[in-house]
């Protein structure tokens, strides 16, 4: 019961804290428009399917990842700078519960740029967005958004241990765009890189969303993709939970919770 209160209040705190920062407002309100424009310029003249795939869905996922990535990573450092990381780590509520609430807050905020990208492209460029399987699109979107939670948890765990958060934060943004087939098909990448693509949940999310929009040739393949995203997310969750167990001890041994 108390954990539920803590999740709710951590989620709300995260939303208020993030939204009061000008940079974050830019990230979730303006950046999606730039991403959409950039992707539209790249794919202008390509097929309708390409435009939906990489302009509407691609820029939406791009914006979602960007805001989730920046907030999850940056917030740990901000908490450290504010001296509140020490407080939340030592409160009676488990740190993973607090972190979970914060990540839910970030992910909910991350849905705003997804929506802005979609509205901007469909209205501004008058591109029709026909969906073959609406109910499966909703399921795919839900799974994709949820899959960002364990990734964020994993990133936040690693960043709690390290003080070099900002550098890492900038390093992890672009590989996801490239490796997960968000801005172009992963088939264009060398075969050996696809191993990394398949262990990243957004790859499966992007596949699921696209197949729900354009039509599903094989339902078996669709459910296999669903299973893949669930398994990859479960793997991240298990690793994160194991890491969190270690974090409480390691941060106290290495004295990395505070800046003074």
């Amino acid at each position, binding site marked *: 019961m108390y954990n539920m209160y803590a999740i709710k209040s951590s989620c709300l705190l995260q939303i208020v804290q993030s939204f009061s920062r000008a940079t974050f407002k830019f990230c979730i309100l303006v950046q999606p428009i730039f991403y959409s424009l950039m992707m539209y310029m790249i794919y202008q003249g390509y097929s309708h399917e390409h435009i939906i795939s990489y302009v509407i869905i691609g820029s939406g996922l791009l914006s979602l990842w960007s805001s989730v990535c920046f907030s999850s990573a940056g917030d740990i450092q901000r908490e450290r700078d504010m*001296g*509140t990381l020490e407080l939340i780590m*030592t409160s*009676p509520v488990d740190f993973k519960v607090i972190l979970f609430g914060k990540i839910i807050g970030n992910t909910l905020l991350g849905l705003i740029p997804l929506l802005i990208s979609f509205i901007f492209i469909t209205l501004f460029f008058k591109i029709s967005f026909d969906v073959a399987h609406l109910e499966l699109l909703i399921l795919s979107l839900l799974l994709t958004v949820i899959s960002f939670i364990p990734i964020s948890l994993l990133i936040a765990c690693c960043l709690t241990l390290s003080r070099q958060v900002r550098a890492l934060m900038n390093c992890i943004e672009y590989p996801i765009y490239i490796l997960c087939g968000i801005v172009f098909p992963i088939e264009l990448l060398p075969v050996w890189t696809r191993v990394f693509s398949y262990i990243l949940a957004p790859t499966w999310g992007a596949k699921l969303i696209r197949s729900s929009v354009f039509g599903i040739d094989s339902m078996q393949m669709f459910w296999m993709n669903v299973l893949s995203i669930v398994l990859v997310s479960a793997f991240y969750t298990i690793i994160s939970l194991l890491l969190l167990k270690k974090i409480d001890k390691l941060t*106290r041994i290495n004295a990395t919770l505070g800046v003074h």
Partner: protein
Amino acid sequence: MEVINIEGLKRSYNTKTGVLNSKTKTTEALKGVSFNIKKGEIFGLLGPNGAGKTTIIKILATLLAPTSGTAKILGFDTYGQEKKVRPNINFIFGGERNLYWRLSARDNLLYFADLYKIDKETREKRIDYLLDLVGLTGRADEKVETYSKGMKQKLQIARGLINNPEILLLDEPTIGLDPVSSRELRNIVRTLAGKGHTILLTTHYMYEAEELCDRIAFIKNGEIVALNTVSELKKQLNQNSIIEVKVSDFSDDDISKLKSMKGVVEVSSYLKDDINNIKIVCETPLEIIKLMLEKFADKKIINLQIREFSLEDIYINLIGDGHV
């Protein structure tokens, strides 16, 4: 009844220097500290910067692991049994940090109430009480970033009391506060101790420690160099008194004459606005004054007072160069 037990506590920090040919340097912040604190006691920890005060507070606050030795709160180890320790303690670091500046004071307290698992009914009453205690009721719904430094520190006190902790750890809580706010904060600390809370306090302000603390430990280079009540520390250190004299036209020869007087232990002086400020440590102050008035009858004595050793004198004697 003892609520805090520290036994042979050691803590080292490793720092790396260089990139290619990196070297690890180990600094011993605590070198085997031991002391106990009784329930309801205000215990002061005094020492210079880097002496190990904050390290002790952080270990007790379950923020740091000791390298060796034990720190126990209410019988539970702060490293290993932290889940049993955390609900019973809270800590306040001086300065303006440790708060969410973009939230109001009330929202900060509501958030921490949730993290300390305080039920809805209790938290409403407690938050109102704490805001009133620290004098922030009128501005409770304004963002913390609009507060003065003093207000932020007061809010920190309220945050530190949100779980009504049995043990409160205060690390330089009045640093940078104006005299009125400092006094208000000292009154709050005294009120809390009166209600049975145990308080461990670190401070650089000797008058604050002297006014508040039941017992004081002096720490230097990670080791406790003295521990007792203020009055016992004064007795232990010295039975002497200090005469402070302000006199004009006092030469080095006169100082030498003073030093040679029977019963004078130590003499120090400095010149300010053409007036010699002389400090005489002696065993029998009245006799020395009598002798002085005879020997220096031609000098213009502006002010003269006898006082006992202050905590600051003890601090300087123990931590500094051994003189007062």
